[in-house]
């Protein structure tokens, strides 16, 4: 099976440790994204899987084969790992035609000639570049080069596809379109993919699971929903959007299910219920994460919708964004951001309602 396993993988450049102790398991057919701020070691991790960089610690296996083991000094070079890779710069060889670029992985593997032609044309058709086979590679637009790079990476049906920010050189619209197309292709062909990006929206839209990295370490691994709604730490929470973090004290704690707890908390001027991953003792301080889009405006009259958090405050700023209106509200001295429906009637004094299922407590 073509699952990829990273065990305690690290990479030091001299004294500097670019990646340290990464544990990751990518299942067959899964689309996993490495996400994190610039310089956090995403590319380095990907390159270690590719065999372009040697890990200084830990073990990497692809399928059932260990391809790199720092302790045993084992290292399979890139060309023996049978992977496909799409580079950020696409790395389309400028001295070849589109056909030759895509045919390259087959030619170096000495595939019979008629086979090459058939498979290259099929790969090109798959990325809708069938008509461009005889074009010289430099005469392509960015999006077309990207398609060719994908075709080249897919043409010999690799066990694993690696992609390093393949969309970052494209403009916003093309990025969304190519991303969706690629995801559809990936699902259809069931290619195990390891994808690198620093764009959170791209990561969430495309991935089965996301690996959030920071300073060479993994902060959290999980599905996009999990990571967005139930982050492990403040760092992960703030990495996606700009959530409101309300300091609060725990009043009571009840178990809901496996790693799912319900906390009653009290903040400054409000009280309510929220969810958490871990149990908390009474009087512990937590930060309650509330995403701006989960805040609703309610009538003063219908105050007690049991279980929810109710806050009231004064609107101090509001800006129109088309589909929604971004509002800054002063709640007892601290500022909260809320994304409200654009047409919602707004008075100066507002009452806010937060569903307990969307309020998430983090250890502070």
């Amino acid at each position, binding site marked *: *099976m*073509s699952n990829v396993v990273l065990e305690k993988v690290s990479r030091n450049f001299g004294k500097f440790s670019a990646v340290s102790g990464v544990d990751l398991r990518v299942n067959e057919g899964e689309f996993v994204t490495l996400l994190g701020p610039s310089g956090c070691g995403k590319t380095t991790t990907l390159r270690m899987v*590719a*065999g*372009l960089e040697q890990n200084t610690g830990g073990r990497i296996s*692809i*399928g059932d*084969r260990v391809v790199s083991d720092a302790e045993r000094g084992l290292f399979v*070079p*890139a*060309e*023996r*790992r*049978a*992977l*496909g*890779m799409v*580079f*950020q*710069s*696409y*790395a389309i*060889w*400028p*001295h*070849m*035609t589109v*056909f*030759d670029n895509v*045919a*390259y*992985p087959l*030619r*170096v*593997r*000495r*595939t*019979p*000639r*008629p*086979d*090459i*032609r058939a498979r290259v044309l*099929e790969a090109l*058709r*798959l990325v809708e570049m069938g008509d461009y086979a*005889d074009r*010289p590679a*430099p005469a392509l637009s960015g999006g077309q080069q990207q398609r060719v790079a994908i075709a*080249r*990476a897919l043409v*010999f*049906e*690799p*066990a694993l596809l*690696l992609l390093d920010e393949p969309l970052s050189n494209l403009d916003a619209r093309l990025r969304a379109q190519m991303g969706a197309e690629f995801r559809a292709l990936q699902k*259809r*062909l*069931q*290619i195990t993919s390891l994808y690198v990006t620093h764009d959170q929206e791209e990561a969430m839209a495309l991935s089965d699971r996301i690996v959030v990295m920071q300073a060479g370490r993994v902060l959290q691994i999980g599905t996009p929903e999990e990571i967005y709604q139930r982050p492990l730490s403040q760092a992960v929470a703030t990495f996606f959007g700009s959530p409101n973090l309300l300091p609060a004290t725990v009043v009571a704690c009840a178990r809901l299910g496996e790693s799912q707890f319900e906390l009653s908390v009290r903040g400054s001027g409000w009280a309510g219920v929220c969810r958490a991953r871990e149990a908390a003792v009474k009087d512990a301080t937590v930060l309650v994460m509330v995403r701006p889009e989960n805040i609703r405006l309610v009538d003063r009259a219908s105050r007690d919708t049991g279980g929810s958090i109710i806050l009231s405050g004064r609107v101090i700023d509001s800006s129109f964004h088309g589909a929604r209106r971004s509002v800054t509200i002063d709640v007892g001295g601290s500022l909260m951001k809320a994304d409200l429906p654009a047409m919602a009637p707004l008075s100066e004094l507002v009452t806010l309602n937060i569903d307990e299922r969307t309020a998430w407590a983090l250890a502070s």
Partner: protein
Amino acid sequence: MERSWQEKAECANPARSFASAKPTGAEKFCARPSLIELAENLYPQQVNMAISADERVEDPGRVPFAAGLRARLRVLEGTAASRTAGVALLVVILAFLSIYPLSMLLYGSLHSTPPGMAGVFNLDGYQAVLTRQNLVMLLNTVGISLAKTFPSLVIAVLLAWILARTDTPFRGALEVLVTLPFFIPPILTAMAWGMLGNPQVGLLNQLYQWATGSSNSPINVYSYGGVIWHMMQYSIPFMFLLIVDAFRAMDPSLEEAARMCGASRWRTFRTVTLLLILPALSSAAILSFIRGIENFESPLFFGSPAGIRVITTDIYDSINQRSPPQYQYATAVSFVIMALLLLIVLLQWKLLRGRNFTTVSGKGYSPTVMKLGKWRWATFAFCVLFFAVTVVLPVGQLLIGSFFKFFGFYQWDMLTLEHYRAVFGSSEFWRGFGNTMLLGLAGASLTMVLGGVVAYISVRTKWRGRMLIDVMAWLPWMMPGIVLGVGFLWGFALLPHAIPIYGTIWALLLAYISLGTPLSVQVMSSAYSQLSYDIEECSRVHGASWLQTMRHIMIALAWPSFAVGWVLVFFGIMRELSASVLLYSVGSEVLSVVLLKLWTNGNAEQVSVIGLMMIVLVVLFRWVQLKVIKARISTL
């Protein structure tokens, strides 16, 4: 379509994928490399138009050999031992080409007699260097080089600005013309100017006398002025070539920003343009200054007759003109010039460190072109004038000289073809021609291969020993031709008889390779460093071995630079005089030596004929080179 891919996806189990990375039975169907594929890498478009990918016919007879060789190579490249062996071999070759002659020089400067003869170690050589006369010589060397560098720089900047940043007509053609003098062997123009500016019978003086009726000769090339003037003809196009791209590739928004801030054109040029290209200017000036110090032809032809001594001619004279030859003194002086050059290089590093503004980015900027109005014909005329003075005049002199019976007596009844007959009938000319061509072809090819390997290792690998390789390949740069010639002279003489290099054409070949290596390394380094790592790594990830990657990607992409470097090295070999004149012997003369001998014998007429032949060659090669550059620009 969908279904077939899903099927494939299902059966693409890893076992199969890994197996496919190894040679399979299928490989006998596609032997590589075929000539067609090789050609295809060289000329991607043309070949593909003619032959589509599946119509290629293979020669089945070659298969087992190719496959066997490939297997063996794959085994070889895999082992760290073979890499170490390769690096060690390279180190030995480079050491023989640079460290060996250098250590011979050191030995020679400390030993009272040439190597191999009985003698004592002493410092007499260095003592002999420390004289008042030699201080004058040192000042001459530095002063002449400084005096030619600054005016050349001004003219080169002017030319670069005219051709890169103004709307002067025919800029493309002018650029070719203006750079041509750089490629003409200096010995030719030296001889031509010797005839043009001869104080007694020089054509220019004759014209002056004819025009004014006076009898004095205002022009005498055998003077400081003559030496400097001759050097400038090379420095100007040399610096132009080094700086013109900086002018051309500058991001126009940097200048536009200054204009938007209210600066005038001139002020913008002064405060932005010039300052941005200052690093390029200063490194060009320093390089030109170094070449001025290493220069041999100009002081030999115009300085020595007037008693103007510089270091290079002093080394030459103390070996060739004095008897017995003063080897110890010559080698001691060699170290003086090398120390001088080292000093300049260190100064350059200090000066230019961290000052390399990258105004040149990958983007294809089209810099703003200044509209000159009527003045554009003035700038046009300036370029044409430069070409006329540096090329048309000397070549014209050679042309005239070749058709008249005696140099200096230009009357109708003196017209003759006898010099052509004499030259083409002379076995010495043909031997020299043959040697020059042979050495040029072999020398340029070997030098570029060596430079390509060194550059690859130092730019694109992290192999141990790459610093050593880099430094050794760079060392000959510190050694002017004449100095390297002395070092090799002894180095070859000392070799055991089983290695007969001394006095053969091999001696010249090795010296040329050594002299050309720094240039070839530089050309190939910049070619490699322009190729992104992705392009190489992408090939590895997709299953190509190191050798395959080299062949299909790196060599295929770097070959235009290889070709350009090849022609440059070839030019270098064709013009080389100072080392050749020390290392040749009967039978291994090259054209420049033949020319020098004829000139010393006073046979200016045959010199003109041979000179013209060489100029034809130069123009031919330059034309090919420009074609190559153009082809590269249109493919990449």
